[in-house]
């Protein structure tokens, strides 16, 4: 499980537009680098990021090798009701990592 840094405001007013920040530890190996013997280091990147809010998708990102290592994504959503924000990262090989954060909307 890669380290993640997630920033979801724990509380928000109904209708307030809030910023969500996400950071995950990952080398985002481009596939273009060569190792010491001259062989190419295989590509290994996170290619998809999906964020849902109480089950509804609020943001999606398709990532390519040009995204820097330890991918950072900051985006916005409207705080509509209390519940769960779920983050899922998927790599080239289809492996996923999921994290959840609560949000309280008053």
């Amino acid at each position, binding site marked *: 499980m890669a*380290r*993640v*840094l*997630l*920033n979801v405001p724990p509380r928000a007013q109904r209708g307030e537009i809030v910023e969500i*920040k996400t*950071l995950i*530890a990952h*080398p*985002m190996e481009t596939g273009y680098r060569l190792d010491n013997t001259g062989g190419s280091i295989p590509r290994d990147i996170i290619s998809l990021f999906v964020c849902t809010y109480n089950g509804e998708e609020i943001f999606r990102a398709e990532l390519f090798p040009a995204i*820097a*290592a*330890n991918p*950072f994504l*900051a985006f916005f959503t409207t705080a509509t009701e209390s519940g769960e924000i779920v983050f899922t990262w998927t790599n080239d090989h289809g492996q996923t990592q999921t994290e959840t954060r609560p949000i309280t909307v008053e």
Partner: protein
Amino acid sequence: MKLLLAGVVSLIATATCAAEITPEARRSGYDFAAAATRAMQDDDTANPGMLWVLQGETLWGTKAGAAEQSCADCHGDARSSMKGVAARYPAFDLALARPLDLEQRINQCRTAHQRAEALVWESADLSALTAFVAHQSRGLPIAARSDPELGPAIDLGRSLFQRREGQLNLSCSQCHDDNWGKRLAGNVIPQGHPTGFPLYRLEWQSLGSLQRRLRNCMNGVRAEPFEYGAPKAVALELFLMERARGMPIETPAVRP
């Protein structure tokens, strides 16, 4: 005649010292970084270095070695026990009769007390633990080295800082004492203070130690870099910390 000679000698000595940055003129590498880089450091939720600090926090509580001990078992809550530690490292180790930097001290604990294998330089785990420990000193001023035992190593560090080296035949001092603030390629030359180590270097896209950064500098002037953990490397680290005394720790910093 003797008076004149003494005057000339003191002038030469002063000329060498004039290159040193006065305490009031000292500024952290943070001040020379671009606004976007500074913003990355300022926000704990967006600072990639914090990923290693988080990892270090987990390792702090993980049992290791034949002794089945975690750092926490002896040191308790790092927030209190490790506060101020990074600010006074490298420190003199009486048993080994030489200065040790923070990475070496952590490995000392691992091998001697946890009876575990030493962590490899620049490995994820060592970087994480060092970042976590150093982070507990964030905001605190780097301590002046008051231990007289450190004198010879500080002198060695200073002489290494001031001597020309490499195919480009440049000394650290020529860039970082004499030409700080001027540009070198796309970056502004900083004064070279180790206030934020281990730090996230944009060039590495990873967190790394001061020794890793110094090796990069030495590659930059086409000199043979010191081996990790070499006495000269630690002496240079030690001198740099003494040179930066009073400046606040920023770990984990973000730098280009």
